[in-house]
């Protein structure tokens, strides 16, 4: 019989208590245990970036962390970005304004990567944005409009 462990995780400021197997990935905890399906599952080996979340304010792959490891850490997902259900935050608004998404599958991971990036680099160059974006794959946009969105969000924040 496999081990089950009771854990309480702090996600977007809310505590969730569940009993899980150690092998449960944080992605699957978020999606299947607490219903936060905004964190997407792409490659499940850390390459595509679709599952990027904030782990104590730093961007990380939720597919490479076991849920049992996340106790005591602050987890933030895309669901925590918007200030209200019918509103977008400034970065999300910039994505809408510049058409920075098409199918949208990669968008939550990119939003979380860029949330952390802009917090550290409020006035980035285009080169810095492209470098920060290198860990997130997008198969629709060709990235140009994503770069535009991040630069626009940074400009509006000034």
């Amino acid at each position, binding site marked *: 019989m*496999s*081990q089950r*462990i009771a854990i309480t995780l702090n996600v977007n400021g809310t505590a969730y208590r569940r009993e899980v*197997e*150690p*092998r449960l*990935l944080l992605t*699957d905890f978020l999606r299947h245990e607490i219903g936060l399906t905004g964190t997407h599952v792409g490659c*499940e*080996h*850390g390459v595509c*970036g679709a599952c*990027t979340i904030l*782990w104590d304010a*730093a*961007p*990380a*792959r939720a*597919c*490479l*962390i*076991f849920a*049992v*490891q996340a106790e005591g850490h602050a987890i933030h997902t895309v669901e925590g970005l918007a200030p209200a259900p019918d509103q977008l935050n400034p970065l999300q608004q910039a994505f809408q304004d510049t058409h920075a998404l098409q199918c949208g599958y990669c968008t939550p991971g990119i939003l979380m*990567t860029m949330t*952390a*990036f802009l917090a550290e680099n409020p006035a980035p160059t285009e080169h810095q944005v492209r*470098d*920060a974006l*290198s*860990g997130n794959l997008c198969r629709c946009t060709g990235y140009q409009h994503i770069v535009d969105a991040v630069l626009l969000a940074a400009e509006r924040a000034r």
Partner: protein
Amino acid sequence: MKPAPFDWHAPATLAEALALKAHHGDAARFLAGGQSLVPAMNFRVSQPAMLVDLNRVAGLDGIAWDADGTLSIGAMTRYRSIERDAAIAARQPLLIEALAEVAHPQIRTRGTLGGNLAHADPASEMPAVMLALGARFRLASSSGGREVAAADFFIAPLTTVLAEDEMLAEIRIPPLPSRSGTAFLEVARRRGDYAMLGVAVVVVRDVAGGCREARLAFLSAGPTPVLAPRAAALLRGTALDKKSIADAATMAQQEVEPMGSVQANPGYQRHLAGVLARRALSIAAARSLA
């Protein structure tokens, strides 16, 4: 793609972690940052019966400087912490230059220096950097400890001298002498990808400006990170001029043992070894004058 079931232990002390590993041997794996082990488990390439999670062990991470300038980095220190450390940037810039090429920021948030070195991927940047810097590794086990040179640590792809009850606990990097210059270069298909080939170099000048010491270490150039001692020997006593550097780069091409990959055949890797060695040595030589 879900990992096979395993038992998970997250001890709070090093002694507990080492005791668990000593008791369970190869059935247990240490879990550090998980950025290589967890993908392997998701693919079920790796199916350990037990994980001894080191993320809650106190005292395994941290950056410290000895009085003699030796840098000690705890095995569980995250890449993210190392790349943001101003003292390392000033005193061991090769580490920082190479870290920028290690995967992506999201991976460096979790990835640890010790986990990466113990994983011993010959395509990885840090093992080659450790050879170039002449690092030493402190290994711990429940029956004691020992120290090994980085050059003696890696023995085959994904294989090190670590015994089944041992852990890589600390990395010790000697200070760079005065009049040193370092450089790191690699060629990858995309930013953050595994390199087709890369090189880390260190050169040290004497007071007259001649080359007193040189080290070249290559990644993706053989079953382990590969040193090029004959190329280094050619550089000693030269003025690190264009011709000496070109001769050393040609020699280094003979010393690498590239195995080829889907992206680059051995001939191309050997070509890259010469080009990157020449460029990196030129950069390091210029920096050693600064």
